[in-house]
């Protein structure tokens, strides 16, 4: 080890130097304070021995100067002193010294002290090396996380979460804490929302967000139902998530045409449907295990439907809010949550009011989980942004001249939703992309009419009050499971015209038909479920045949007339 000895007393210095050299150290000698400072800079010793009393700069001053001016890693200074008073010895440490040795120097003591400091110096070096390594790894990790965040943000983007019928609270790093909030417009207007909470934190929890988001946006745009989407999501998460990681989820469809909300809660805390008209709150309990636990064979989605109008709001939360703790580790709890909601029923922004209540409740207690809260009111009838198809503007592509038909019988009517299939096949003709929302609306209205009112014989007048509403969907679900006979034939004929194309939707069902003339005359009032006014508005013609058992709707489109 390189050691600097500064002592103006030649005898003392010569002896000490030789002692240390005999112990195997490399010794530099300085004859006074000034010499000590310049030798220190010149040789960068690992340890410095300073005599206290020296002409020029004394030991204290030298210590202060070299400690202050040195940018080097830590090095110890040991004072050599024949002073014995406690205050003199204390001054050695105050001046930046690390230890002192009394003169005359005892060979054994000086060796022991230098050995001890050598160990500390080695420790410092090890720590410095490790710190450098850790710093390097840390920077690397941060870079990777930034990159990962960009990928995540591209895939698990927030969709239309900024729409003005939505208030939400979500922390910016929530994705890495396993909370996911997604919103997308439905092809026929309205919105689909999903609030997901993966168990655990960090990367394992975040990994599930990728497939979940992809499936959410992919299948929502293609018009798949909640049921189909959740089956797909569960299947994927079941196969990719590590053991012990699963996903509590609330998924909500708001159909702004039928003024209806469909919800499925799997493992999340209660959701709250608020009616501002009746000042009541309805709780939607979890009805299923979280995603990623049950094998695809055992997985089953049973949604609940509720009327949902401009008078309604829905609030969904993750357990971070329910489990938020105050300083006594008492939880916010579902009871307090409900009473807070009831207190703020009339509030424009219930989300903000609730977050304020949670803040007050928690005080300064650090929260361990993410707090996610979603408040949605009725979306105005908005259709998706028109997909600008800049490619193939003139050349008509895909299924521009084709008939697609499908006959569904018996159980298949309950098990299979043909709308996404038709939509995807039709949209392989790029020119139809701007018409996606309209085509979806026409097709799903016609198909649901055929199934609900035709095959199942349900009367949509039932839906006029809220009890009847639930009753209607219960009967529908029951009807579908019990269905053995019955059919719906769907056929879509697409042929090109001089300026665009013509789509003819032709649906026949096994129902009893209906009094076409009367319904058409009465308009939407008594048979609103048929959505006739809307269909008439979107299509060029609608014709009921065979006493209402068959319907033909014609939709004309034009290259030069892109719908907004």
């Amino acid at each position: 080890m390189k050691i600097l000895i500064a002592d103006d007393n030649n005898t003392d210095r010569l002896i000490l130097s030789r002692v240390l050299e005999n112990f195997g150290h490399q010794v530099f000698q300085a004859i006074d304070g000034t010499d000590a400072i310049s030798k220190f800079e010149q040789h960068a010793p690992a340890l410095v021995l300073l005599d206290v009393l020296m002409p020029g700069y004394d030991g204290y001053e030298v210590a202060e100067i070299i400690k202050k001016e040195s940018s080097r890693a830590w090095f110890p200074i040991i004072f050599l002193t024949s002073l014995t008073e406690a205050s003199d010895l204390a001054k050695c440490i105050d001046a930046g010294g690390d230890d002192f040795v009394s003169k005359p120097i005892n060979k054994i003591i000086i060796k022991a002290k230098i050995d001890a400091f050598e160990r500390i110096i080695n420790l410092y070096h090890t720590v410095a090396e490790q710190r450098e390594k850790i710093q390097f790894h840390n920077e690397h990790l941060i870079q990777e996380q930034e990159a990962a965040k960009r990928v995540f943000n591209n895939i698990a983007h927030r969709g239309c979460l900024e729409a003005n019928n939505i208030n939400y609270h979500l922390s910016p790093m929530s994705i890495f804490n396993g909370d996911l909030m997604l919103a997308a417009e439905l092809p026929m207007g309205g919105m689909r929302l999903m609030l997901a909470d993966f168990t655990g934190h960090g990367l394992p929890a975040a990994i599930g967000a990728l497939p979940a988001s992809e499936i959410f946006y992919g299948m929502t745009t293609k018009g798949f139902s909640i049921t189909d989407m959740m089956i797909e999501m569960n299947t994927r998460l079941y196969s990719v998530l590590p053991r012990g990681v699963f996903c509590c989820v609330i998924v909500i469809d708001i159909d702004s045409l039928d003024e209806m909300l469909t919800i499925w809660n799997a493992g999340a805390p209660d959701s709250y449907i608020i009616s501002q008209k009746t000042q009541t709150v309805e709780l939607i309990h979890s009805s299923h295990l979280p995603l990623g636990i049950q094998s695809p064979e055992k997985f089953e989605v049973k949604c609940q439907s509720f009327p949902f109008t401009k008078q309604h709001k829905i609030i969904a939360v993750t357990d971070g809010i329910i489990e938020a703790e105050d300083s006594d580790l008492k939880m916010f709890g579902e009871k307090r949550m409900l009473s807070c909601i009831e207190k703020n029923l009339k509030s424009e922004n219930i989300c903000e009011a609730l977050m304020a209540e949670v803040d007050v409740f928690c005080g300064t207690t650090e929260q361990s989980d993410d707090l996610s809260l979603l408040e949605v009111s009725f979306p105005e009838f908005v259709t998706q942004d028109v997909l600008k198809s800049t490619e193939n503007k003139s050349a008509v592509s895909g299924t521009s001249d084709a008939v697609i038909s499908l006959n569904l019988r018996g159980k298949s009517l309950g098990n299979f939703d043909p709308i996404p299939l038709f939509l995807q096949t039709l949209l392989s003709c790029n020119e139809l992309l701007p018409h996606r929302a309209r085509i979806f609306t026409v097709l799903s209205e016609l198909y649901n009419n055929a199934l609900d009112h035709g095959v199942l014989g349900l009367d949509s007048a039932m839906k006029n009050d809220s009890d009847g509403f639930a009753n209607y969907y219960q009967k529908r679900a029951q009807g579908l499971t019990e269905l053995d006979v019955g059919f719906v034939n769907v056929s879509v004929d697409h042929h090109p015209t001089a300026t665009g194309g013509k789509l003819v939707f032709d649906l026949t069902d096994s129902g009893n038909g209906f009094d076409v003339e009367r319904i058409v005359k009465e308009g939407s009032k008594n048979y609103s479920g048929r959505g006739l006014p809307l269909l008439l508005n979107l299509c060029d013609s609608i014709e009921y045949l065979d006493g209402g058992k068959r319907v033909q709707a014609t939709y004309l489109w034009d290259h030069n007339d892109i719908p907004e």
Partner: protein
Amino acid sequence: MENSLDLEILNELVDIMGDDMSMLLNSYMDDSRDKLAQLEKMDLSSDQESIFRMAHSLKGSSRNVGVVEFSNLCEQIELLARAGTLTDSDFEIVKLNQLFEVACQLLTKRYL
């Protein structure tokens, strides 16, 4: 005479210094002779601080090379000067010189 040197210290010093023993002793004797000369010139009434430092320095290096009797007298003077109570009768320059020269003769005879 027999109290002038501590032979135990000196024997250990031979072990430590090896071939450099003569260099060390020469250096000690030259330095100390200089310091002693400086000390002699110091003014008892106005410069007790300088006397204290010089005596302190002489004491330290002398003890290291086993020159104990001289070292002990240096220490007496050091302590009094430090307290500012050194008097003419205690400032025994003649005796200091005498003890130093005896020690030097012995050192030279034994080790040089």
